[in-house]
């Protein structure tokens, strides 16, 4: 009987292909949106995770101020770090691979007739270890260059491509903002960063050079600490916090005046923003699904009216209420599942296309696909019930008289 109902349902869908497809649009769009969203979301998370880990392994980012990205507000509380802080960290921290100060600003590079906008970072040689940079050409700074603040710099691949093509940038002298400096190294390419930024568009110079000749101060806004292993992260975080409280004279009952973040925190922050977005889009998808469900209810009611005579015949020759109910429920179910399947395929295709253009990995989630399939079935049953019951309760005599 169920099989018969299923066959009949397919037949009925086939007889009204265009109508069925139009009816299913709501479910197709709803399911498609959910699937596309979740798949793209998964891909983005994967991508962000990969990219952030490219920034450096087991990396801790130490910044003044509390729980903020970027520099905090003005005032004593949020003042930058200084050489003393860095020295103390270097002297006392254990279980670390590298500790690097970092100060950055935008600057324009000029070489010959060409100019190029980039970001300049002032730091020292440990920076390259902390952020997992390797050298395509040349060398890192010597201790001497760092101490004396020499006018030397190391450039990223994009900078080399923009200013020095087809030559190598190594050994050239270019202007960085108001100073000129010699290129002593070229970094190997890292590609796009977590925020869609070009990580290779960068110039690195000794911190002292940066402070004296570009910034005009001795601040260190950020310190990168690379823990030796992932297991060291909690201990390193704890000792860093303790040392900083000491150096910055934070009273025992006061909050930290700095923030130590590791990548997993940053990843979860980014994922939580995308959870918010997902929630919003889910609401849109929910509305589409509701519209889809009402569409199914509507078309089933139309179908029941159109087929009143047929229903009368079935009832007259001995179909039970339950059997007629089943027939129409199965039909609504088949319709909705069809919409679900089309929606799933559409959503995956959309996510695939988006992934291709946004360079995001294609990361479909089987559980969401199964869930979407089951959910569209539930919509079919839910919204198909009322029309099916109406069919089942028809009076056979009146149904037979129906034109």
């Amino acid at each position, binding site marked *: *009987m169920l099989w018969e109902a299923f066959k009949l349902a397919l037949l009925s869908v086939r007889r009204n292909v265009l109508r069925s497809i139009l009816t299913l649009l709501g479910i197709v769009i709803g399911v498609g949106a959910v699937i596309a969203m979740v798949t793209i979301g998964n891909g983005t998370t994967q991508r962000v995770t990969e990219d952030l880990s490219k920034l450096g392994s087991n990396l801790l980012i130490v910044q003044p101020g509390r729980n903020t990205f970027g520099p905090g507000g003005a005032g004593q509380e949020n003042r930058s770090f200084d050489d003393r802080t860095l020295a103390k960290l270097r002297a006392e921290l254990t279980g670390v691979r590298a500790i690097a100060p970092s100060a950055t600003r935008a600057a324009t590079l000029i070489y010959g007739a060409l100019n190029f906008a980039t970001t300049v970072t002032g730091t020292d040689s440990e920076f390259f270890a902390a952020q997992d940079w390797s050298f395509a050409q040349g060398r890192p700074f010597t201790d001497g260059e760092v101490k004396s603040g020499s006018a030397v710099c190391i450039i990223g691949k994009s900078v080399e491509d923009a200013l020095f093509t087809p030559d190598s940038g190594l050994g050239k002298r270019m202007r960085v903002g108001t100073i000129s400096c010699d290129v002593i190294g070229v970094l190997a390419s890292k590609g796009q960063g977590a925020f869609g930024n070009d990580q290779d568009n960068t110039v690195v110079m000794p911190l002292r050079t940066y402070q004296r000749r570009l910034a005009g101060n001795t601040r260190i806004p950020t310190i990168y600490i690379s823990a030796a292993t992932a297991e060291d992260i909690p201990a390193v975080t704890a000792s860093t916090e303790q040392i900083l409280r000491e150096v910055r004279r934070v009273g025992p009952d006061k909050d930290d005046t700095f923030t130590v973040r590791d990548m997993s925190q940053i990843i979860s922050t980014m994922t939580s923003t995308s959870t918010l977005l997902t929630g919003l889009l889910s609401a849109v998808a929910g509305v589409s699904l509701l519209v889809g469900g009402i569409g199914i209810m509507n078309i089933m009611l139309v179908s029941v009216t159109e087929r009143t005579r047929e229903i009368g*015949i079935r009832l*007259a020759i*001995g179909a*039970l209420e*339950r059997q007629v109910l089943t027939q129409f429920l199965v039909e609504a179910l088949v319709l909705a599942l069809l919409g679900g399947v089309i929606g799933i395929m559409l959503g995956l295709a959309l996510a695939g296309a988006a992934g291709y253009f946004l360079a995001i990995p294609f990361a479909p989630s089987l559980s969401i696909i199964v869930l979407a399939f089951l959910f569209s079935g539930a919509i079919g049953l839910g919204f198909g019930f009322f029309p099916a019951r109406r069919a089942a309760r028809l009076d056979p005599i009146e149904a037979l008289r129906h034109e």
Partner: protein
Amino acid sequence: MTKLQPFIAFEKVQKIYGEGAGRVKALAGVDLAIERGEFLAIMGPSGSGKSTAMNILGCLDKPTAGRYLFGGADVTALSRDQRALLRRNFLGFVFQGYNLLARTTAVENIELPLVYRGTPRHERHERAIEALRLVGLEGREHHTPAQLSGGQQQRVAIARAIVTDPLVLLADEPTGNLDTARSHEIMELLTRLNDERGLTIIMVTHEPDMAAFAHRTIRFLDGHIESEHRREAA
């Protein structure tokens, strides 16, 4: 007259439609007894209550008052599904307008009552083919109603009605849409089913020619049985 329990009996059956000013007494206390194996014709002017009586006989409707006994059992108070089971197991219907499912082949139409009985597919098909042969339509298994003439469609409808081996066949103006020659063929088929299978047949007709095939003819007028006529044994 022996007081044997009749096969089918109406006891003062009333059917009233509507209320107040729109109240219509379609059946006004009808007494009727039908024997097993009988071929009964019901005649009467339009609106005299023939279809109403057929609907109650066919367990499609309930009387407003009175009792309807089927095989000695009172079926007046049965529920919708119980009446559906009764129809499914003991009754077959033939309508004036054939009432076949469109775009569905002859065999599939005939199989339909068996589908609802849960008869296995293979047996269903065999019985449908057999019924089709019985009504003289072998070779038309896969024709849809649109590809069949009126007489052929009515034969398919009769095959569908008898495929379940019912006790009673109810036919409301089965030849109403057919020409004389086709009508006679249908009547000959019904007579044969009545003779050979002992099928009880209750048929509504307007045409005395068709009623002449029946053992007995009753005539309705304004919800009463106005007259009754028994054909002399040939």
